[in-house]
């Protein structure tokens, strides 16, 4: 292939059952791609577009090659269905035996020599006279592979080609692919990064965009090891069915009265000297009511939050009811903080302690930055479960301050959630993160929203970082 394939803002539908939205993608010479992503994100659909399938509703797709070698479950199913149809079409009393494997291969492939070699290698020689439809799934897969490889394709598309292959065949296939990388560009759909052959140069990461919609959300260059490792983690969070670890049963939070709101601010005002930042704000957060708080810089978002958390000194001169306490009546801030999990960029800056990742998570039980008490065995166990969920088990004892910025953020979210607080405050949790880390953080938050009783208060001014499940919005305006 000496020209490139290009998708520009392409939206492609597949029988109205699934839509790929707004895809921008270029494949140029000497590139070999892997497409990956969560289930339902449209990985196979994207590969199918390269084989000319789907209806392009908007945007452009150009440079698709004529002769595409395609191996996929769908194509395999289709071929088998065709064979069965031929059977149905057979009238008369002749017993239908179906098309023999020999015909399936040699009538189709333009490179007979190669086809012969592959038949030999894949151990199909003794099956050449067998009817195609009589083959096992693994055997039909091998036939598919030979048809794709030995037909001198301009582009080879292999959708989960390794699934269902025995170890021997798998090795053989890997070897063969490695030997042809200079002849044909290869696009593979794979679920797991560790299956990725070494010749892959780029990774396209797909993500669900809504019900029955998928899109291309990240492109990672194989050379960029940092991005590559983060992608590993993202896939882990997206694709494994992990549960949010339990709270510490031996150290439960006091029960809250379910009839009372979590937070009630009445006519609250924040002012510095003569400048009023927040003027007579009223806001009630009921249990189970997720909120998004937005507003420009300087509108007092963080101020309002810190009135709730007790970090703002003016919480003592305002009418604030939180977690059963009317503020300023002899309660301590630790009695308030025990009900709150909190994550912000400022917290991350303050968290400059040289302690281990595990201890950072455990410190969430104590609402402290760093640890001053000895953790219980149960707390350690729970922290380990969180590390596993984050895909960071191997870093339990690494010092927190040596982690990447994005990993630190993930750990701080786990720290905030470890005690299953009634209220989780996420103050611009994606701030300062690159695209990949943003997706990692959002993936984790989504997991938390689905898997716990916690009420989420999400602060953000980027509309695109929405979190599913949030229905209440409060927007602060900047006062002149």
């Amino acid at each position, binding site marked *: 292939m000496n020209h490139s394939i290009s998708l520009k803002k392409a939206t492609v539908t597949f029988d109205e059952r699934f839509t790929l939205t707004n895809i921008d993608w270029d494949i140029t010479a000497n590139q070999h791609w892997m497409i990956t992503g969560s289930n339902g994100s449209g990985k196979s659909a994207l590969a199918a577009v390269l084989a000319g399938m789907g209806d392009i509703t908007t945007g452009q797709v150009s440079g698709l090659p004529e002769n595409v070698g395609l191996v996929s479950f769908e194509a395999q199913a289709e071929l088998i269905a065709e064979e069965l149809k031929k059977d149905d079409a057979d009238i008369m009393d002749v017993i239908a035996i179906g098309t023999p494997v020999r015909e399936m291969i040699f009538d189709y492939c333009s490179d007979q020599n190669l086809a012969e070699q592959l038949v030999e290698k894949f151990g199909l020689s003794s099956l050449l006279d067998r009817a195609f439809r009589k083959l096992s799934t693994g055997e039909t897969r091998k036939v598919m592979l030979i048809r794709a490889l030995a037909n001198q394709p301009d582009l080879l598309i292999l959708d989960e080609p390794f699934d269902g292959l025995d170890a021997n065949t798998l090795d053989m296939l890997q070897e063969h692919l490695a030997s042809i990388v200079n002849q044909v560009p290869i696009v593979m759909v794979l679920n797991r990064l560790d299956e990725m052959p070494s010749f892959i140069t780029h990774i396209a990461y797909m993500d669900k965009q809504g019900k029955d919609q998928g899109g291309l959300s990240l492109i990672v260059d194989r050379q960029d090891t940092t991005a590559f490792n983060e992608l590993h983690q993202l896939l882990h969070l997206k694709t494994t069915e992990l549960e949010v670890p339990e709270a510490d049963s031996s150290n439960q939070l006091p029960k809250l009265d379910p009839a009372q709101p979590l937070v009630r601010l009445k006519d609250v005002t924040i002012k510095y000297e003569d400048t009023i930042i927040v003027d007579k704000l009223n806001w009630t957060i009921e249990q189970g009511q997720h909120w998004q708080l937005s507003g420009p810089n300087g509108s007092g978002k963080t101020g309002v939050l810190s009135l709730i958390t007790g970090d703002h000194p003016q919480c003592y001169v305002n009418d604030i009811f939180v977690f059963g306490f009317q503020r300023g009546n002899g309660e301590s801030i630790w009695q308030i903080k025990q009900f709150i999990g909190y994550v912000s960029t400022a917290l991350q800056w303050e968290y400059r302690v040289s302690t281990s990742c595990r201890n950072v998570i455990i410190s969430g039980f104590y609402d402290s930055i760093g*640890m001053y008490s000895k953790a219980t065995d149960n707390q350690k166990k729970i922290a380990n479960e969180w590390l596993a969920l984050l895909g960071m088990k191997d870093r339990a004892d690494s010092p927190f301050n040596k982690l990447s910025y994005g990993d630190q953020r993930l750990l701080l979210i786990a720290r905030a959630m470890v005690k299953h607080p009634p209220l989780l405050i996420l103050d611009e949790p994606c701030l300062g993160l690159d695209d990949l880390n943003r997706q990692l953080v959002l993936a984790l938050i989504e997991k938390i929203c689905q898997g716990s009783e916690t009420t989420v208060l999400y602060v953000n001014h980027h509309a695109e970082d929405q979190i599913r499940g949030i229905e209440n919005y409060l927007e602060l305006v900047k006062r002149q």
Partner: protein
Amino acid sequence: MSNNYFNTLPLREQLAQLAKCRFMSMDEFSDGVEALKGKKIVVIGCGAQGLNQGLNLRDSGLDVSYTLRAAAIAEKRQSWKNATENGFVVGTYEELIPTADVVLNLTPDKQHTPVVKEIMPLMKQGACLSYSHGFNIVEEGMQIREDLTVIMVAPKCPGSEVRAEYVRGFGVPTLIAVHEDNDPKGEGLALAKAYAVGTGGHKAGVLMSSFIAEVKSDLMGEQTILCGMLQTGSILCFDKMVEEGIDAGYASKLIQYGWETITEALKYGGVTNMLDRLSNPAKIKAFDLAEELKVIMRPLYNKHQDDIINGTFSRVMMEDWANDDKNLLGWRAETAETNFEKTPAGDVEISEQEFFDNGILMVAMVKAGVELAFETMTAAGIIAESAYYESLHETPLIANTIARKKLYEMNATISDTAEYGCYLYNHACLPLLADFMKDIKTDVIGKGLSETDNGVDNARLIEVNAALRSHPVEAIGAVLRGHMADMKKIV
């Protein structure tokens, strides 16, 4: 003129008070802030300690308000802003002192006599008066009304740290004491403990001590190793480097940030760790220099301790107070004129390790100063725990102020009392080290050892390592640092 309280005591009692110091265990604080719950706490002064202690106490569920001198309220001074912006009630002495169950006197030490004289008549019968430093009681012999309880809760850190550590869920090491002459209801200890919990101090370690031990050790530490040694060291090292042809900008930077970098190592692993950061030949060199320095400076440390114990120091300083701080202000101006102070840090990159490698003499000075201060204090009867906090523990905190804005910043941050003592030390120490400095070359300050100095005698290295590790400040340090695991890194 005031009456030195310590000097009125019989020797037996003096020794007993000096030796009073016990590291309290966590379960002694199981009552939390209960003893102060519902009591009205009124703080006088809203400066570094006043504001930050008050914020912590309020966040611990206690009732805190502020009283300021009338002028501060009328002119809306910084102290008034500090209190009102943080949502505290502020009132005059007449308005608030009579309502107070506990009065925290957090005005500058120099003002204590007039302030206490003014508020004492307004105080409720049986109320409590608290200090964060014992100077007024011990050195000025302030007499407090018999019905009042007098306690001390002294955080061993600047006010900003007191707050920052509390917010992190910790606290700073704190010394508490009850003035035995003023404990009519026997509730002094309970109140002091609750106060220490309210500021978060109990989580970092509390020393139960006496007013006397606190004052005599606090003064000793700040005058010698903490401020005096760093000031003298800065001046000597800078002038030497320039004299030897090292770029002045580099020299200025090496010193300004060097103290902070090398003492950060102290904080994590004591003097041993600080010296372990050097190569083996450099370590032996630093050790030898420190030994020499200790011999030369020991009489000076003894003199400071003696003057502090017998009251000479406070008498002389108070004479200067009475003389409108003539000496203090003069010395402050003199410091501003030193070459080190006037030369800005150059725009050069110095790596963390380079501060050690090229600052062998600075390492030796810190080692000598810490050990001498510790040895002198313990020889005077001050208990090791106290001596540790007043020497090694606080050194990185002070070094941090020099990194911010040199000696100016250090002297602005510390109390006038510390500043006065620092200048006294500096004036005596500069000439004392003159001969020693003649033999100093850039291998130990400015450039680091050359390749040819690289040989190390195994036996000597073993000896040095053993000597480092067996110093008594290391033993007590290991225990006390254990209580402060995961300390915040000072960046």
